[in-house]
C-alpha cells in the first residue's frame, strides 16, 4: 500500500440523528443536521480547498479558502463554519470563488519560503496541495515585509518548530486546547505580528507547559511543526495500523514506514480508544526498539558469576529444555514456574501459561498484574461477577460526575485523561462534568486549565477503605441510595447488611476524620455529589438521573486492603445505581498495555482463561481435552510465594517473559535472595534488565513492531498488533515460547498467532466470537464477544450483573501493619510520571530522559524545613526494608507527613525501600504505603554502590569465545 494520509473531513462529525438533504454542485446529499457544508461536501467526494480546518478540532473559519456560494444568501460564507440546512443549494466552484481563493493563496505564498524541493514536508504539505488546487500561478506583490528567516525552535527532542513556515492557522493551538487540553500554545501578538508561541514569548517548546503529545505536530498543515525523524529520514511511503505497547489505554497508531524503517507513529483517527490522539510515549518514544543495548542473540551461562556466552537459538532451546527437565526430575515439577508479561500479546501470554500448565505440569504461573491490578480481579469478580471495567472510554463523554481515586490519569493514562478533560471542560456546549479527586497528592487534574475539582480529598495513604466507607455512610444515612436499582439488580439482604454496617456511627466521616485526615464536611459534600444530590442542576427543565463514574488506578489496588477498596468502590456504584449504562460505571485504569489481556488469558495461578477457577472441573476438562494433558486442580504459586519458596529451597526454575521483577517488585533484597536461590532463571526480554543479573539463560525478545498478535486494553478492547518490520532477533516472542515447548517435547505447531487466538476463542466463552478476521473487519472488539453479542460489549451489566445479582460486600477498615513511628515518621507513596513508563526499560532508552533524568523525592516544605532540606539536595530515603538516595524536590503537592517518588530509574530503585506487606486477598504489594525517614546525604548508599558493581559484573558478555 502506498502512503496516503488519513482522510480529513475538515470538521468534526455530529451525533445528531435528524437528517437534512441539500444540493452541493448539483448533487443531492443527506447528512445529519449540524454537519458543516465542508464535511457534507467531503462525504460526497467534493474537496473544498481548506487550510485552517481539520476534523480533529472545531471549525475556526480563518483561512478563507473554503468559501462557497449559497442560493439566497449574501456574500461567500465559509463552508467550514456554515452548517447545512434542508434544501440548501451550494456551489463550491464558480469563477468568483476561484478568484477569491487564488487571491487568498497569493497572500499566503507571498509570505512563504519557496523551498518546497528541499522542505521536509515536500509531498506531505497541505499548503502545497492547496496552492495547486486553487491554481495559483504567480505572486504579483512586490513584497517588502515577510515572516521569513526566523529562528527555529528545535528544543523539543522529537519535533521542530519553524515559524518562518507558519501560516498562522491556529490548528496547533486548537489541537493543544481541544484535543490535548494542556493549553500550552497561544497566539502571541496580533494582526501581522501574530505568532504561535509556547507559553510566553521567552519560552521555547521545551521550557513551556507542552507535554509533547504531538497533537500540534499532527494538526500542522505545513512543515512548521514537524517530526525530527521526518526531517532526518524523509516522508513515509506506506503505513500499517497497529496498537501502542505502552499503557492500558491502548491507542491505535499508524506506523508510517520507509522500507523497514519506522518514520513516525501517527495516532489513528478511527482508533476507538484514542480517537486520533496520542501522548509523548506512544507518539515519539519508540527509539528503544533500535537501541544499541538491545540483545539480539540468545545467551547462556551456568552460573551468574560468569560472563554471558552468546549461542544460536537451537542451542539455547536445547539447553533451556534440558535444564528445566533436569530440575523437574531432581526437585519435582512444583519447583518450576513462569511469569507471563502484560507487555506481550494475548497470544504470547496464553502460550506461556499453557507452557507452565501443560508443560511444567503445575499452576505456578503468575503475571505482573499480581503487582498492579490483581485486587481488581478479585474485587470486581466478587461483586459484579467479572474482572473488568464496566465501560468503554467513550462513556466518559456522558458522565455528569467523575470520581477519580488513586489514579493520576494525566501522567499514567494521558490520552484517556485528555478525553476526560474534554468532558470536565464542558465542550460540546453541555455543562462541564463535576470532579471529585481522592488522592494524597494534589495531582495535575485537581486543578488544570479550565478544570478545578469540586472536591479534593487528600487522604492519609492507606485509608482508602475508611474514606469510601464514610462516603457510603453519608449516602445511606442521608437517604441518597438508589433503592429501586438495588431492589431490582442486587441482593437486597446483602445490601441491608452492608447498609447497616456503613450506617454505624463509627463509620461516619466525623468519626473517621482522625484516621483519614479528610475534612468531614468536604467528604459529605463529595458523597452527595457522587450520589447525584450535591450537584445543583438548576435550570434543567426535568431532573434526570445523574451519571456518576468512578475511575481508579494503582492507588486503590496497591494497598494491604486493595481488594477491599475495589469492593468498596463497587458497593458505592451499586448503591447509587451507577452501573449498566453509558456515563457511569467502575473503571480500573490499567497500567500496562495488556494487563487486562494477561489476566483474561489465565495468567493467574488459580484460574484458567476467562476467569474460571482451576478447581472448576468442567472448565479444566475443556482444556485437558483440547491440550491432551491432565491439569493440576490446585492453585499454583503467586510471584511473592515463588520467591519465598525459592528461599526455602524448593522452587528452582523460573521463566520470566517481559517483566523485570527485580526492579518492579517490592523489597528488592527479598526478590534478589529468591532469584539467587534458583538454579535456572530464564529471562526473555529486549534488554539485559535488572532481573537478568540473576539469570542463567537470556532469550532475546521482539518489540511490538516486530510481531503479530493482540493486546486488550483497559476497556476490554481486543486490538490487533501488526508486524511492521522483521524481528531484529529473528523470532517473534510467541515463536520463542513455542520452540521452547517443542524442545521440551510438547506437540505445538502454531504457524501464526491467529491460530493461537482461535484456540483461545475455542476455550474461552467470553472470547467465543473473536478471530483475527473479525478484528481486521471491526478494527477492535470489546469482550464478551459471544453469540448474544457478536460485535462485542461496550457497556457491561446492562440488564443484569454477570454474576446474577450484584453483591454488596462489607469492607471494614483494617489499618495496615506498616506503621509510622519515631524511626520512620513519614509515609512514602510511589507513582509514575508522564514521560516515563514503569521501570523505564523502554523510555530510559529514548529522548524522554530529557524530561525526567532521575527519580525525585517530593517532600512538603514543613518536612523539608524540619530536616534542613531544599530542592536539589541529595537525601537518604530509608525504611525498615532498605535505603537508597535520590534528590529532593520541595512541593506542597504532597501533604505534610507524606513523601512521593517515581520508580523509573534503576539507579534509584525505589523498591529497595518498599516492604513486602501486601493485599490480604491477592498479595498485590503495598507499594503505596511505606514508613520512611528522610535525611541529608552525600551520595549513593552502600547498597547502591554494591548494586552498581553487581550490574557491571552481571552484564559482561564474553563475545571473544566462539560458541561451542
Amino acid at each position, binding site marked *: 500500500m502506498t502512503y496516503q494520509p488519513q482522510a480529513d473531513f475538515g470538521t468534526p462529525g455530529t451525533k445528531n440523528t435528524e437528517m437534512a438533504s441539500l444540493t452541493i454542485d448539483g448533487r443531492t446529499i443527506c447528512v445529519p443536521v449540524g454537519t458543516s457544508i465542508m464535511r457534507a461536501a467531503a462525504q460526497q467526494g467534493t474537496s473544498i480547498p481548506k487550510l485552517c480546518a481539520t476534523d480533529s478540532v472545531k*471549525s*475556526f*473559519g*480563518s*483561512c*478563507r479558502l473554503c*468559501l462557497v456560494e449559497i442560493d439566497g444568501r449574501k*456574500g*461567500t460564507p*465559509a463552508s*467550514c*463554519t*456554515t*452548517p447545512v440546512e434542508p434544501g440548501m443549494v451550494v456551489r463550491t466552484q464558480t469563477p*468568483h470563488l476561484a*478568484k*477569491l481563493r487564488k*487571491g*487568498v493563496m497569493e*497572500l*499566503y505564498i*507571498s*509570505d512563504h519560503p519557496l523551498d518546497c524541493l528541499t522542505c521536509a514536508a515536500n509531498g506531505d504539505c497541505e499548503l502545497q496541495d492547496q496552492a495547486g488546487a486553487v491554481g495559483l500561478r504567480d505572486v*504579483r*506583490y*512586490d*513584497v*517588502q*515585509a515577510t515572516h521569513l528567516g526566523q529562528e527555529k525552535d528545535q528544543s523539543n527532542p522529537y519535533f521542530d518548530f519553524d515559524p518562518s513556515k507558519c*501560516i*498562522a492557522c*491556529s490548528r496547533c493551538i486548537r489541537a493543544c486546547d481541544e484535543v490535548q487540553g494542556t493549553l500550552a500554545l*497561544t*497566539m502571541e*501578538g*496580533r*494582526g*501581522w*505580528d*501574530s505568532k504561535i508561541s509556547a507559553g510566553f514569548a521567552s519560552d521555547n517548546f521545551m521550557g513551556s507547559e507542552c507535554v509533547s503529545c504531538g497533537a500540534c505536530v499532527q494538526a500542522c498543515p505545513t512543515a512548521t511543526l514537524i517530526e525530527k525523524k521526518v526531517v532526518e529520514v524523509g516522508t513515509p511511503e506506506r503505513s500499517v495500523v497497529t496498537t501502542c505497547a505502552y499503557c492500558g489505554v491502548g491507542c491505535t497508531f499508524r506506523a508510517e514506514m520507509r522500507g523497514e524503517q519506522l518514520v513516525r507513529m501517527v495516532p489513528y483517527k478511527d482508533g476507538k480508544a484514542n480517537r486520533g490522539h496520542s501522548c509523548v510515549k506512544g507518539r515519539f518514544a519508540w527509539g528503544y526498539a533500535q537501541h544499541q543495548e538491545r540483545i539480539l542473540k540468545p545467551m547462556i551461562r551456568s552460573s551468574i558469576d560468569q560472563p554471558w556466552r552468546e549461542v544460536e537459538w537451537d542451542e539455547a532451546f536445547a539447553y533451556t529444555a534440558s535444564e528445566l527437565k533436569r530440575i523437574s526430575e531432581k526437585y519435582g515439577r512444583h519447583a518450576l514456574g513462569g511469569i507471563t508479561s502484560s507487555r506481550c500479546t494475548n497470544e504470547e501470554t496464553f502460550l506461556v501459561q499453557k507452557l507452565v500448565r501443560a508443560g511444567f505440569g503445575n499452576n505456578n504461573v503468575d503475571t505482573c498484574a499480581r503487582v498492579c491490578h490483581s485486587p481488581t480481579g478479585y474485587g470486581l469478580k466478587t461483586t459484579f461477577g467479572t474482572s473488568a471495567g464496566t465501560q468503554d472510554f467513550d462513556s466518559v463523554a456522558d458522565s455528569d460526575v467523575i470520581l477519580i481515586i488513586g489514579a493520576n490519569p494525566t501522567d499514567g493514562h494521558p490520552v484517556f485523561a485528555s478525553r476526560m478533560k474534554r468532558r470536565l471542560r464542558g465542550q460540546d*456546549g453541555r455543562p462541564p462534568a463535576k470532579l471529585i479527586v481522592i488522592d494524597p497528592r494534589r495531582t495535575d487534574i485537581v486543578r488544570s486549565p479550565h478544570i478545578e475539582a469540586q472536591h479534593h480529598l487528600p487522604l492519609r495513604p492507606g485509608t482508602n477503605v475508611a474514606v469510601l466507607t464514610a462516603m457510603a455512610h453519608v449516602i445511606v444515612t442521608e437517604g441518597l441510595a438508589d433503592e429501586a436499582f438495588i431492589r431490582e439488580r442486587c441482593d437486597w439482604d446483602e445490601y441491608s447488611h452492608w447498609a447497616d454496617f456503613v450506617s454505624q456511627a463509627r463509620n461516619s466521616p466525623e468519626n473517621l476524620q482522625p484516621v483519614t485526615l479528610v475534612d468531614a464536611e468536604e467528604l459529605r459534600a463529595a458523597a452527595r455529589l457522587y450520589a447525584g444530590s450535591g450537584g445543583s442542576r*438548576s*435550570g*434543567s*427543565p426535568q431532573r434526570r438521573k445523574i451519571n456518576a463514574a468512578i475511575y481508579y488506578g494503582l492507588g486503590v489496588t496497591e494497598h494491604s486492603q486493595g481488594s477491599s477498596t475495589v469492593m468498596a468502590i463497587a458497593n458505592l456504584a451499586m448503591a447509587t445505581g451507577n452501573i449498566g449504562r453509558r456515563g457511569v460505571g467502575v473503571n480500573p485504569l490499567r497500567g500496562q498495555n495488556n494487563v487486562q489481556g494477561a489476566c483474561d488469558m489465565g495468567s493467574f495461578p488459580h484460574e484458567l482463561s476467562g476467569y474460571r477457577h482451576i478447581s472448576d472441573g468442567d472448565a479444566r476438562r475443556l482444556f485437558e481435552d483440547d491440550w491432551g494433558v491432565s491439569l493440576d486442580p490446585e492453585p499454583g504459586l503467586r510471584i511473592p510465594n515463588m520467591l519465598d519458596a525459592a528461599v526455602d529451597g524448593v522452587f528452582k526454575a523460573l521463566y520470566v517473559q517481559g517483566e523485570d521483577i527485580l526492579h518492579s517488585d517490592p523489597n528488592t533484597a527479598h526478590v534478589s535472595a529468591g532469584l539467587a536461590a534458583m538454579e535456572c532463571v530464564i529471562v526473555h526480554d529486549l534488554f539485559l534488565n535488572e532481573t537478568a543479573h540473576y539469570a542463567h539463560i537470556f532469550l532475546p525478545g521482539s518489540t511490538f513492531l516486530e510481531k503479530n498478535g493482540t493486546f486488550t486494553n483497559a476497556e476490554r478492547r481486543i486490538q490487533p498488533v501488526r508486524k511492521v518490520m522483521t524481528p531484529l532477533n529473528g523470532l517473534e516472542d510467541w515463536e520463542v515460547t513455542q520452540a521452547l515447548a517443542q524442545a521440551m517435547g510438547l506437540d505445538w505447531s502454531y504457524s501464526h498467532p491467529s491460530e493461537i487466538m482461535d484456540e483461545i476463542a475455542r476455550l474461552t466463552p467470553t472470547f467465543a466470537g473473536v478471530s483475527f478476521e473479525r478484528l481486521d473487519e471491526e478494527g477492535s472488539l470489546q469482550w464478551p464477544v459471544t453469540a448474544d453479542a457478536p460485535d462485542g460489549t461496550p457497556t457491561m451489566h446492562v440488564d443484569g450483573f454477570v454474576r446474577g445479582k450484584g453483591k454488596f460486600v462489607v469492607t471494614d477498615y483494617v489499618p495496615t501493619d506498616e506503621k509510622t513511628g519515631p524511626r520512620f515518621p513519614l509515609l512514602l507513596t510511589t507513582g509514575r510520571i508522564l514521560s516515563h513508563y514503569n521501570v523505564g526499560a523502554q523510555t530510559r532508552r529514548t529522548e524522554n530522559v530529557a524530561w525526567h533524568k532521575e527519580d525525585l523525592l517530593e517532600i512538603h516544605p514543613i518536612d523539608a524545613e524540619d530536616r534542613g532540606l531544599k530542592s536539589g539536595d541529595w537525601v537518604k530515603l530509608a525504611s525498615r526494608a532498605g535505603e537508597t538516595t535520590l534528590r529532593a524536590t520541595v512541593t506542597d503537592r504532597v501533604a505534610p507527613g507524606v513523601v512521593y517518588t517515581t520508580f523509573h530509574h534503576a539507579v534509584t530503585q525505589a523498591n529497595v525501600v518498599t516492604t513486602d506487606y501486601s493485599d490480604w486477598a491477592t498479595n498485590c504489594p503495598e507499594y503505596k504505603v511505606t514508613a520512611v525517614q528522610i535525611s541529608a546525604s552525600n551520595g549513593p548508599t552502600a547498597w547502591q554502590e554494591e548494586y552498581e558493581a553487581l550490574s557491571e559484573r552481571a552484564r559482561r558478555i564474553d563475545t571473544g569465545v566462539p560458541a561451542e
Partner: protein
Amino acid sequence: MIVRISDDAVAIACGADAVAEAFACAGADVIRVSSWGMHWLEPLVDIEGVGYGAATPSQVSEIIAGTAPSIGRIEDHPFIARQTRLTFARAGKTRPISLDDYYASEGWLGLAKARQIGQDATIAAVRASGLRGRGGAGFPAGIKWQTVAGTMSDQKYIVCNADEGDSATFADRMVMEGDPFMLIEGMAIAGFAVGASKGFVYIRSEYPHAIAKMEAAISASAHLIAPFTIEVRVGAGAYICGEETSLLNSLEGKRGEVRAKPPLPALEGLFGKPTVVNNVLTLAAVPWILAHGGEAYAALGMGRSKGTMPVQLAGNIKHSGLFEVAFGITLGELVNVVGGGTQSGRAVRCVQVGGPLGAYIPPSRFDLPFDYEAFAAADALIGHAGITVFDDTVDMAQMARFAMEFCAAESCGKCTPCRLGSTRGVETIDQIIAGKNVEANMALIADLSETMKYGSLCALGGFTPYPVMSAMTHFPEDFMVRNAS
C-alpha cells in the same frame, strides 16, 4: 443665579472646569449638566436658557453682569432647532447622575411600560419601531431580541457595545456621560424582554469619564432595575474589540479575536449563552420607543431606516457636534448647512462617513439621503454615523494607504485576507505613490480589495476596501499624478 455648565469630557477638555470654578467663586450656583452637543461652543454657559460660548474664566464677570455677547436662547439656536431630539432629549438639560432629574424628564417610563405590557408586547413595540442596530450593521433590533427571547437557556445576557472607536464618533460617550440612566433603562428593558438577568457594558478604556458615570449611575439605580444587574467592563485598547464577537471574547477574558458566525451571538454568545449585543445608541433609543410607542418612532425616517439618527459631525468642519435627526436628510445639508462647511474655509473635497472603514464621498454625491439602503447602493456605509470632513488639501492616495495601514494595525490576525492583505495593501499603495507600475498595481489593489471584501471574516478586513476603492474611484488623479511626476 443658577449657572449650568456641562461636565462632559469635551466641555472639560475645552476648559469647562475652570469656567465653572470661576462662576462658583463669583457666588453663582453652578450646576454641572450634560452637553448640548455644540462642540464648537464649549464650554457653553447656560443661564436660564440663554447661552454663552465658548466661555472663558475671564468672561465670567461680564456674563454675570449681562454684558457678554450671548448666542441667545440655546433651544432656538439653528443647530439645535433643526434637530429631532429623542435620544438626546435631555442633552444639556439634566444632571447626568441625578435620579430626580431623570424622573422629572420621562425617566423610567419606558421600563414601567415594558413591565406593564409584558415581554412579547415589548419586543413587538421594538419591532414596530423599525429600530435598527446603530453600531453599523443596521440589523433590526427587534428581530435580534426575538431570537434571544426564543431560546431556552438557564442564562442569557445583554451586552452593550460601548467600545466606540470609529473616527468622528462620540455619541455613545455623550449618552454614557450625559444620560447614563437612559442606557441603563434601555438595557433593563432588553433584559426584561428577552429573559436575561445580567448585562455588561463594555466601555473602551479611553473613556474614563464615561466609565465613572456609568458605574455611579448603575449603583444609584440598582434597586430600580432589579433583578436585572449590570456590570461595567473596560476594554484594553483594541479597535477590533468593537466587533461584537471579538468583544465577547474580550469579555470572557480571551484574546480579542473575531469568531466565525454562525453560531450567532443571539444563540451562542457570551460564555456560550444566548446574548443580545447592541450598541449604546440602539439601547438608548429603547426607553423612548416604549414610552411613546413603536409607531411614533417609526413615523420618523424614510424607507426601512426608521426613527432618528444621532449624526456626529467632526473633522474639518465649522460646526462640529451631535446632530440628531430623522433619517432622510441629505449628506449635503448635513455638511454644508448644518455643519457650515469646513473650518479652514477651503472647499470641501470629500467626507468619510462611518468611521475609518467608511467610503470617501465626493461633493458630487452629496445628494445622498441619510438612509441605510441608499448608502449601501452607493458602496458607502452609515456605520455609527460619524462624518469626517476633509478640505481640498487632502491627499487621497495617502488616505487610501491609511485605510490599509489602519487595518494592518488593528487586525486581530485571525483571517488571512486581513492579516496579510492589509500589509500587502500598504506596500502596493506605496508602490503606486512612488510611481511604480501604477496601472498594474492599481489592478492588484482592486483584486486585493475584492479578496478582502468577500474573504474577510469580519467588517474590519471586509470594509477596508471601501475607503481604498472609493479613494481610487472618485479621486484617480491623486494616484495617477505621481506617475506623471
